[in-house]
């Protein structure tokens, strides 16, 4: 079998085309067709952004505040998503809250990925005691239920959290998983002969990381960012639903908190909980597909698996 998989493997990875821009574009489109999760993910997330963007332009977001509209109304022409018990316009809440939730996720995701990447490189590159410590902390940190640790943190810093503080709380644990996965990637890459050749060609350590390793890691880092963002959103919504979030901000998680707090379900106020649920589903399914798509891009061996 030695010969054939090589031939097949050569045809599969993202072939660097030597043609012009049009050909490259066609190549990208052709690739997208072979990677449906990427398209599904992008379409879902873009439509969510579109909803928020257009909504913010045409709708009065002040109505997301409590007592700004009559409470407890079902959807109608004036209030397309209805209003909640405390007099918030739920359409405005969704338009204003989705970007807030995304912001928490992205901030924590970025911080987590950045810290994780740095630690992963430090750990994998220097090895020894530093590596043992970092690996130990990560392995132990990952077995512990993250939500509970964040609860301790959130309670400790309690007061009224801002959206940014919320992101920081979530970021406290967001670096664990990226550190673990990126470390193993760096570790295997460090042993690659091309890294050693680069060293023998006179490249310095940082230069090798930037020029030889990072380019190959990029698709992987992108997939990790999406994964870290999704985890952060999940964690933030969880904390918020427990009442440990930014009480004054109309985020998706806080909306769920109020839903549970006021037992909207038992009151039959379906319009109160269906919008956040739908947005959560679109958001997570979008992020999930995007990360699967990017994973496939980063690790073409999985392609055409079955």
């Amino acid at each position: 079998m030695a010969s054939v998989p090589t031939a097949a493997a050569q045809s599969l990875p993202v072939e660097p085309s030597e043609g012009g821009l049009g050909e490259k574009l066609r190549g990208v489109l052709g690739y997208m067709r072979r990677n449906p999760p990427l398209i599904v993910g992008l379409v879902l997330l873009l439509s969510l952004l579109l909803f928020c963007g257009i909504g913010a332009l045409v709708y009065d977001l002040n109505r997301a505040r409590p007592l700004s509209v009559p409470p407890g109304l079902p959807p109608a022409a004036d209030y397309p998503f209805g209003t909640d018990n405390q007099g918030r316009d739920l359409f405005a809440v969704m338009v204003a809250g989705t970007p807030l939730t995304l912001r928490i996720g992205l901030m924590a995701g970025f911080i987590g990925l950045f810290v994780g990447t740095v630690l992963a490189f430090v750990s994998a590159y220097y090895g020894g005691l530093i590596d043992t410590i970092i690996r130990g902390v990560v392995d132990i940190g990952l077995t512990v239920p993250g939500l509970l640790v964040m609860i301790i943190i959130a309670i400790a810093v309690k007061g009224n959290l801002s959206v940014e503080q919320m992101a920081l709380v979530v970021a406290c644990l967001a670096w664990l998983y990226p550190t673990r996965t990126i470390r193993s990637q760096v570790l295997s890459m460090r042993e690659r002969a091309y890294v050693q050749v680069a060293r023998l060609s006179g490249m310095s350590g940082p230069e090798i990381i930037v020029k030889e390793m990072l380019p190959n890691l990029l698709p992987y880092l992108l997939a990790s960012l999406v994964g870290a963002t999704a985890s952060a959103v999940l964690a933030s919504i969880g904390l918020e639903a427990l009442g440990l979030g930014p009480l004054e901000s109309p985020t998706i998680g806080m909306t769920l908190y109020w839903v549970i707090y006021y037992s909207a379900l038992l009151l039959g106020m379906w319009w109160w909980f269906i919008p956040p649920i739908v947005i959560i589903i679109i958001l997570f399914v979008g992020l999930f597909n995007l990360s699967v798509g990017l994973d496939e891009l980063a690790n073409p061996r999985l392609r055409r698996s079955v």
Partner: protein
Amino acid sequence: MANSTVNNGAKPDILRVEGLRVYYDTPRGSVKAVDGISFALKAEERFGLAGESGSGKSSMALAVMRMIKPPGRIAHGGVWLDSRNVLALPEEQMQRLRLAEIALIAQGSMNSLNPVMRVRDQIIDGFRDHDLLLPRREMEARIHELLERVGLRPDVADMFPHELSGGMKQRVCIAIAISLRPKVIIADEPTSALDVVVQRQVMETLRKVQEDLGASVILVGHDMGLMAQFVDRLGIMYAGKLVEVSPVADIFTTPRHPYTQMLIASLPSLEEKGEFRGIPGLPPSLLDVPPGCAFHPRCPHAMDRCGTEEPLMKEVQPSSWAACHLL
């Protein structure tokens, strides 16, 4: 090519391969890994199939076992064992035929055994799935006998693969391969991961069990030295085709095909030092094999005809066959 089936000597043919083609479908077209190969294997014969990477030799081995997986497929041809066409058997019969009549010693001796099963159970599995399970004591005796036959101590049966050295693992594979006394053993690069000393021991073990059993062996590989040491008759593959089939002594003394000639000349020896004679040019991609004779772009004797007309196998002298327009 069908008439090129090589036959000579008194021993009957045990396995015949006729016009076999194995294609792998890729987005860029069909990779013709095996492209019309015919040969016959005689009883108790050791036959070698030599080729460099990309010559299709491993696909050839898997095709005879009918183990080509998608995107690969057997596009054409027949593999006749006695009077049955192996390629036309129903799947269940094919399953029973493997190991019982044709056994494979696969490439990658380091990982050919299931890492989480003891050697004993891996041997027994073969018996069980051929409905040949013996009473416990007899089974145990059979396992001991098999292990001893390949030069291993009986307590190896209780070990896991990771407790064995590379050479021991490959001996276990040989023990499994001969457990049902097959007529044909296909050994695909059986020693590619082993050191020379162990390689010699494993090859001699293989020769010994082959002679004990009276089985035939097809040795697939790239190492011409190993071929010279082990086989009776040798087929040289280039770009998915056989270019020459001759008794092994003839191949090394009077190679007929220019590719064989250059391949033999490129081999380093302990006789003379100095000259490094490689074959200029590159082996073709199996996606895009040159028309006519696949070797013509690298051949010093190429004529106009070679680029257009595919040479057929000819019997150059009794039992020596080659496919070249020069002959």
